[in-house]
Structure formats: C-alpha cells, structure tokens
C-alpha cells in the first residue's frame, strides 16, 4: 500500500499535506506538467483530470468525516477504483472511491476498517 500524503508542519506552521517527492499526487505518474494549489500548497499532477479527482476526494473525505485537515491518504488500486484509508491523528477512515471520465466522484463508499 502506498502513501501519498503525510502530515507535516509546513513553513507557515500550520498542518498541511505533503505531496510525493516525485510524480502526480493522485496516480504517481511522472508525465505531464500540471500544477494546482491544493490545501494551501502547490501540487504536481500529471493532468488536470487527476487534479480534479484529488480535490474532489479531499472534499468528500472532509464532508464525510467532519475533519478540517487530513494527515495522510493511503491508496491501492487504479483508475477503475481505489481502496483508501484517510488518517487524521489517531483516527482512520476507510473508503472506496472511483472517478468518472471528467474527474467527478462516481462511487464513494465508506467501509468498516
């Protein structure tokens, strides 16, 4: 299982997401050159669709959990669907997510961890 975001204390001394050193924040591909500000920091994505997917995923996790900050998201799977665990402090939130062709969330299911 890979981990794509890790909690850290950013330079502004607020909790923020740390993106992988290399590759798209969502799929880890190193193609492309698309950047967006997400959760207060500049993030690299391989394409605009991955950026939309990532932002939609963050928004949905926050809506579902009530968290205002996410420490880490562990993901397995691919474009056909990803099994994920979002972490915040000692809390864990397990879910499955799948995106449509325009980056919209097509399936989101909370799972029992």
């Amino acid at each position: 299982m890979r981990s794509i975001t890790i909690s850290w204390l950013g330079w502004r001394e607020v909790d923020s997401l740390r993106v992988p050193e290399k590759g798209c924040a969502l799929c880890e591909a190193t193609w492309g050159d698309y950047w967006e500000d997400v959760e207060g920091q500049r993030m690299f994505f391989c394409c605009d669709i991955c950026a939309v997917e990532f932002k939609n995923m963050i928004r949905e996790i926050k809506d579902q959990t009530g968290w205002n900050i996410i420490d880490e998201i562990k993901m397995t799977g691919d474009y056909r669907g990803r099994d994920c665990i979002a972490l915040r402090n000692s809390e864990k939130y397990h879910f499955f997510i799948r995106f449509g062709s325009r980056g919209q969330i097509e399936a989101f299911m909370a799972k029992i961890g």
Partner: protein
Amino acid sequence: MWLNRNITKTKTDPKILAKLLGKFFDLGEENLQSWVKHRFIEKFYGPRPHPFVEALQHPSRATLLGYVVEHQHFLKQWVRSCSFIMARTDATDVVLYELDNINTEFGGMGPGRPSHYELLLRMGESLGLERRKVLATPPLLETKEALQLWDGICQKDHWVEAMVAMHGLELIANRNLRKEGARVHYFDPTILESETVTEATKAFLREGYEADVGHSEEALDLATKYAGQLSILEDVQATFMKSIDAFDHYLMARLERSRQFESS
C-alpha cells in the same frame, strides 16, 4: 493518461518512448487478429479482470439489471454502427457479415430465434424490471460518452477501423480467450446449468457465449484481410485502442447502474 495506462507511468525521453510505442504496436509474429486479442485480454482479462467481469462470474440481480439498463443503449448504437460499416464498404463479404450480425443482435430470426436485444429485455423482465421502464431510462454519462465515440468512429473513420473498433468488443464473451491467456470467462459457465439465475438470464448469456466466438473472429479475419490490403494497419490499431478504453468505461457504467438496484 493513455501512456500511464498502456506504456509506462514514468516520464521517458523521446527516443525510449518511441521504442516503447513501436514495441506496443508491433505485430511481430502475430497478425492483426492475434494482436487485438492480446491487447483485449491484457485490458479486460489480465491479472485483475475488469470489475464488471468479476461481478458477472456469479451475478447478483443488481448486476444483471445494471447490465440490462445500460446494454439496451449499447445495442441500439450497435445497429447504427454496423449499418454505417455496411453503408461505407463495397466488400460483399463484409456486407453479408454485418447483415447476419444485425439480425442476430437486433432483428432476430423469427419467433424461434429472438435477437440478443429481445433476450436482454426478457432477462430484465424475469428479474422484475418492466421493459417500458428499461426503455425509458436514459444512459449514464459514461455510457453516453462511449456511444458517442463509437458513433463518431463508424461515421468518420475508415470502415475497417470501425469493424475492429466494434466487433473487437465481441471478444468480451468469446470463450476461446481462455485458451489464449484470459484468466476467467466472461461469466462462470456453470451458472448456465445451475438454478442461481433465471431461465431468461441463461438464455441471454448463452446466446452471447455461443454467438460471439464466431462474431468476433470472423470480423477480425475480414478486418485483417482488408487492413493489409489497404495498408491502414496502424490506424486500425489506434482506433481499436480508443474503442476498448470507451468499452472499459462503459462496463464501469453497468456496475454503476447496478448499484442503483442493490437496495431494491
């Protein structure tokens, strides 16, 4: 995105990328038919078979209803696609092939041999879904987008490209793929002998199981012949790759639709 899914996720320099792409499209010792099968198996029947195929191994009522609702749209487009191919070719063997295919899939051959379309609707009815409701339900976005892509291919691209783009998809139910590396069948064939699904479901699944070996392989034989004669092999390969991407999304739409039936 295409490179990520088919070649590599790692950015490479143009020379290496050119080699990787060359290798991907190179037929080597294969012909077009075997290349198409190889790519199809890789995408839908590889180490992680497509989620819809996994769901169809021992299908729930919801899975089958998701199939019915989205597939009726697919089959309507299917007739349009085959008709465009017929209208745009001057090859008699292709016209005859498409006529037979349209009859099997949509027209039917009399009361004793209903079409695949009719069998699909009967499967829905056997599971409690009225055909008027099926016919009145618009396609999901992913289905709609896939249908638009196929319609465009069949109207605008060469008819040989259209043939492979459409009939290559019939490989999904080709039981011979198991001998060529597919990890599973489209569905577990033992369900045809069991009591776990309705008789109408068996009739629908059996029809595809029996017809699609011939359908897909005969079409690919024809396409292999004409793509070679017309020297449009690479165009055909590229269009096929677009088509199976759309098919991947379309199969996901069937699953998405089936979720709507899970609690009903």
